């Protein structure tokens, strides 16, 4: 997929031979190496999208992964965004394209998650409870003991949390609803939902940190 994106982006380049040379080199290298090689070799006259792909790919991927936890899905989304940008905005410059790429990545993430949650609601893919997680984890055995302590602390924090805050967190994180949708359901404003979610997350992070200091010291 990555190679395809580069090829399509570079098809736009004035200097086709340079672009082709880069693609050959990248065939056996990882994207990271390719980016490093590109930095040193590519002429500054690359088309804007190719330059942005080089400089902004990691940032866009991180931006996407704040929502979409699956790395492969996130990469697909970012790469689709570049291809859509090439189709939709062939003549725009870097300054205009960068915010558009963020918007595209965000819209594609929203759609992706809607489909994901929609499937779950229709009973597909729920073979076990773990599949319902936004970000399923498979910790190593030695980590599991520590984790079970952490989960205990976290459960206590959840139990002590105001019910509205807890429900806002659940609908946000595990039902995939937007702040507006949660706001309607809980009869509060979307701004209140957003701050409820933030405070709920801060609350559990805070209790984990306090427990960590008490038991394991700063290293824990």
């Amino acid at each position, binding site marked *: 997929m990555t190679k395809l994106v580069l090829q399509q982006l570079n098809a736009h380049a004035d200097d086709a031979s340079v672009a082709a040379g880069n693609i050959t080199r990248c065939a056996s290298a990882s994207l990271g190496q390719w980016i490093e090689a590109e930095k040193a070799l590519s002429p500054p006259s690359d088309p804007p999208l190719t330059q942005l792909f080089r400089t902004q790919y990691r940032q866009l991927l991180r931006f996407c992964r704040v929502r979409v936890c699956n790395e492969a899905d996130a990469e697909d989304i970012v790469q689709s965004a570049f291809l859509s940008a090439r189709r939709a905005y062939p003549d725009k410059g870097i300054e205009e394209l960068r*915010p558009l790429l963020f*918007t595209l990545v*965000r*819209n594609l993430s929203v759609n992706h998650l809607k489909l994901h949650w929609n499937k779950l*609601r229709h009973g597909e893919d729920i073979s076990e409870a773990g599949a319902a997680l936004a970000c399923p984890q498979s910790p190593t055995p030695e980590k599991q003991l520590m984790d079970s302590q952490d989960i205990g602390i976290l459960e206590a924090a959840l139990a002590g949390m105001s019910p509205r805050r807890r429900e806002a967190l659940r609908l946000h994180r*595990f039902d995939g609803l937007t702040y507006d949708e949660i706001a309607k359901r809980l009869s509060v404003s979307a701004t209140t939902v957003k701050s409820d*979610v933030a405070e709920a997350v*801060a609350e559990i992070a805070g209790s984990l940190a306090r427990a960590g200091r008490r038991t394991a010291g700063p290293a824990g």
Partner: protein
Amino acid sequence: MGEEDHAGRVKAAARWYAELQAPDAGAGVWDAFRVWERDPRNAAAFREIEAALSTLDRSSLAARPAAKGRAPVRPALWLGAVAAAVVVVALGAATLLGGRGIESPVPPPLVYATAVGEQRVVELEDGSSVQLNTASRIEVAFTDEERLVRLKAGQALFEVEKAAAPFVVDAASSRTRALGTAFEVFVKSGGAQVTLLEGSVSVAPPGAAAGEGIVLEPGERLMVAGGAAGPVEQVDLAAALSWRTGILQFTDIRLADAAQELNRYSAKQIVVGDPALAEERLSGSFKAGDQEMFVSALALFLPVEVHRSGNTILVAPAGD
């Protein structure tokens, strides 16, 4: 104090998480987040939030079945919801691109800036306020020992709250140190110009000890360039600070200097096409950003003709 500080950063990190999850989060929010995250203490706080979330994903809250009695959602409705989300998103992006700040739950960034022609008052965490003039940028780096602000570009008026930690402004090759006071710093022509309104400041090269430097009194101005300070001048404070009202007051200055000052506030640039004309002197009050008004006023009392092309307004001697 350290723990309290850290707890504050974790709260801020949680607000960033919530902000980045918003359906309308785009490049603006992301860039503001990255500025905030540049501080390693903030980055550590955000990692803590991510770790807490990954624990949350394995808690009972994740496994709890959805609330009972919810109607099954039909795909057609979902398409509608997605379309609505896209509209909301587009509006959100337009607001951000329009240069407006983000809504209040976002932690304040450490960098504040104004666009050409924009002015803005920023409240700092110690209660001090900064008024930024056109095309200006400050970076705020407060610690327990020192309230440090770097003026990277443009002009800013500081009204400083009294506190134990000194308030320090670094600009070009100058360092201005104050306790409770009001003063202005302007980065221009390779140096920094410091003007004192109230109280007392000392101006020194960066890295100088607290006791060193030239002490200014209210109404005095000092230019520092290339590590050397010029003479202390008396200024008319009302005129010098009239930019805060959006009016530029000129008293017997060269046309070239007036044009340079006016050009700070507008994308349209006034160019004086003739050296003799550039030396003409003028006085008056003009609205910042209104280049056309200035040029038409100019045409009333000087024999000039005006040529416009793109964003350039060329003022040349009339006739020939």
